[in-house]
């Protein structure tokens, strides 16, 4: 048992560390969200082109960003897990997927609800929308693959393969508006150019993005803890945890 304890020490210490961090991120998420919504609904002015419908932007854009970003992070942790056989990083990747899938779904949903008043249709087969839909398939594929495999080690590795192969889709989503001329809006926030929209809108959007960040981190930490417990249920330290509880 002494050896096991040594080997599993890193998930164990992460478990306790994550437990300490979760409240911080949760509170930050709530506060930022409230602030963002306040700015979004009560400070930001009506858009002269789109009217009030544009207010969907405050969740559409953060959700879209998170969906892509979480996928990249997931692929990165999976890759690290595959290359160095570190169990914790694979567990984090496993924990990221559901949250990422949720944000992808939200980007699609809010986009569709925005598209109806703006473009006159719920859905078009344009490059960005299609590639975002593919992203949802990739997330679902990753989760179903892992769910279908009983052996966690194999599940981690197989999931990592699909995550890494699928990561090519993310640049396609991001640059699709540039590569193909589409209905969808181009990037209005970039590091090199000054922003094109009203500053209050931009602040609202950025604050909401930050809120989503905090929420995602908190969620991933909580889920990672659950995954750790599931996988390590036979180790001494989980037993001690129970003994103490």
């Amino acid at each position, binding site marked *: 048992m002494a050896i096991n304890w040594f080997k599993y020490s890193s998930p164990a210490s992460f478990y306790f560390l994550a437990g300490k961090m979760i409240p911080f991120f949760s509170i930050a998420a709530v506060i930022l969200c409230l602030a963002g919504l306040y700015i979004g609904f009560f400070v930001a002015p009506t858009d002269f082109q789109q009217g009030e419908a544009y207010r969907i932007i405050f969740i559409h854009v953060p959700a879209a960003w998170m969906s892509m970003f979480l996928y990249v992070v997931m692929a990165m942790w999976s890759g690290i897990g595959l290359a160095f056989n570190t169990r914790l990083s694979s567990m984090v990747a496993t924990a990221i997927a559901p949250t990422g899938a949720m944000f992808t779904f939200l980007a699609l949903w809010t986009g569709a609800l925005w598209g109806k008043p703006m473009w006159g249709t719920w859905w078009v087969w344009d490059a960005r929308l299609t590639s975002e839909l593919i992203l949802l398939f990739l997330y679902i594929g990753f989760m179903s693959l892992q769910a279908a*495999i009983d*052996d966690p080690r*194999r599940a981690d590795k*197989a999931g990592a*393969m699909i995550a890494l192969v699928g990561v090519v889709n993310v640049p396609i989503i991001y640059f699709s508006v540039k590569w193909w001329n589409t209905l969808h809006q181009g990037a209005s926030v970039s590091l090199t150019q000054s922003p094109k929209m009203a500053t209050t809108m931009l602040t609202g959007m950025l604050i909401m993005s930050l809120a989503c960040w905090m929420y995602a981190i908190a969620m991933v930490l909580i889920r990672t803890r659950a995954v750790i417990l599931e996988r390590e249920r036979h180790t001494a330290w989980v037993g001690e945890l129970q003994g103490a509880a």
Partner: protein
Amino acid sequence: MFLWIIQRDLLLAMRRRADVLTTLFFFIIVVSLFPLGVGPEMNMLRIMAPGVVWVAALLASMLSLGRMFSGDHLDGTLEQMLISPQSLSLLVLGKALAHWLVTGVPLVLMAPVLGIQYDLPADALLVLTASLLLGTPVLSLIGAIGAALTLGLRGGGVLVSLLVLPLYIPILIFGAGAVEASTAGLGAGAHMSLLGAFLLASLVLAPWTAAVSLRISME
């Protein structure tokens, strides 16, 4: 060695000819059903044709992926392949190629005939066949990854489609796009070279990825 694998898989396919025929027949059915569902207007059909043929090819290829490794898995041959001194990537390449010869090539040969049903002009037929010739091997190669990852899993059928489909979509878009571009008078060159690039990239990357996946699945 590489040749051995191809030869063996072809031999097996000859022995179980029904499997090969299923794929081809499925392809023909899908393509022929559409005019019935959509209506007989030739202009419509001509526009739809490349998309329909490509979607049918993609589905036919996807539905036959399950057989790529599962037979060898069940009877223990796959284990022997894993411990063969030969490179596993080469071996996977051989199997993917055999899969293509058995499922892809018949589709390519059949495509012009089906294209005629849709009243495609001769040059569009040529482009369609050429795009399938470049594209179908990519389907087999990418499919090998999915098949390797889902080896022996419950519900392998859904899973493999779920995993492989997102990766197939670019090929579909550019394959059908090539024909459309050529009929629109834009020239299929750009699309074809993209397909060629996909083929090269997947020839290099897919066998290796599938080999790694196989090792993961067999552990």
